[in-house]
């Protein structure tokens, strides 16, 4: 019968989307194989330069070296100051600062 049912169209669309999902899963395997070598390189660099942080955002000291921020850094001048760097509002203060309150 040449008449296509709407549900056939839906199943085709879902199959198409699932095909994409499968393709992206293949992409994921490929990428995670690639990323092993990259992570090994990153580890070497962290070790040899004694680095402590990821380079996510260089806007401010406490977003560039997140883990090294002292307790006053995330609240630059006042504990209730509004965060003025976009990155700072994405990033919470490091947990060890909240735990240990001595400087």
């Amino acid at each position, binding site marked *: 019968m040449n008449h296509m049912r709407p549900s056939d169209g*839906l199943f085709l669309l879902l199959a198409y989307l699932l095909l994409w999902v499968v393709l992206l899963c293949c992409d*994921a395997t490929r990428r995670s194989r690639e990323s092993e070598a990259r992570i090994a390189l990153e580890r070497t660099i962290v070790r040899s*330069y004694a680095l402590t942080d990821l380079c996510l955002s260089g806007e401010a000291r406490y977003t560039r070296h997140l883990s090294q921020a002292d307790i006053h850094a995330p609240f630059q001048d006042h504990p209730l100051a509004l965060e003025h760097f976009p990155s700072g509002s994405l990033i919470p203060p490091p947990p060890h600062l909240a735990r240990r309150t001595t400087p």
Partner: protein
Amino acid sequence: MTPGIARYRNILDFTLRAMLRRRGKNLLVLTLFTLVIAVFASILLFTRSLRHEAGLVLKEAPEIVVQRMVAGRHDLISAEHVARIASLPGVRGVAPRLWGYYFDPSANATFTLVVPPDGGIGEGKARIGVGVGRSRKLFRGNTLVMRGYDGREHALEIEALIPEESELVSSDLVIVSERDFRSLFSFPSGRATDLAVTVANPREVGTVAGKIAELLPDTRTVTRDDIIATYQALFDWRSGVMGLIFASALISFALFAWDRATGLSAEERRETGILKAIGWETADILLMKFSEGAVIALISFLGGCILAWLHLHFFWGSLFGAFLKGWSTLYPYFRLAPVIDPYNLAVLFMLTVPPYIAAILIPSWRAASMDPDTVMREQ
């Protein structure tokens, strides 16, 4: 085909035809819902990947970093601290770390200057991260000129660029020798930025850190576990903008559901009545409404997840980039290890698909259970 499946397919066919009548509205809902899910899924995939990679890479970070504090601010630490920490039992080694920030006016960017602890770089040379290279348009063999704190210009020859695959840790680094570092910043000799302590027994890190804090009350310690925990807590659900995004998405979703619940249109009610009158059961009507919700929700969920993946891994998460980059001009184009967390995806699924179906289904419930003769009486 068994009658049950044939019945479902027949009802599904009608549902789709009915939805195609309101093509514009349904496409709009589909698009918005897909985008909402794409944003959620991007956040989930991005943070999951970032935490995963941070957890692996930062295992190589110093076991304990000791910083000196002066009046609540991070200050330079002196050589005598090195000797006192080294004398503590359980400490295997203490290495001064020299690092600092250099604001480069021509690139309008802040670089992180680091002296390698093993001193493996010659005087007058520099190794730079690709972010630095990009912002100053520098290549191997070029000269990087920096203005020192003494007002003089310091020229360093670029010995190498740090491989770009490692941008996540190295993008803004400038690796220089100790002599160049001290002269550029007029950094007092006998002082260091902070200390990296290695511990003989990895299980004693906490104890040793405690002893250091006791022995040197003017310092604070950051252990490797603290560092890793910092990145595991990154993009916490409750933090700042993330919370805002989630809250606004939830609110808009609730509004949408409320709109559906109260706004079941007269036309829809009439059609439900007709279907009842011509012999559809309450269950048939609910199956139709369920399909209506499920079709939109499933397509949106799959589409949203696919979009999120493309965004993160083919477009370098450029939306997050805009946030992380903020006002800094130097931003790393890092690739992340793809991590698909079934738990995260299941949570996302449960938070979006069933509520949407419920939002479609529940308002129809009353209409679906109306008496079949309602249509005849209302005319």
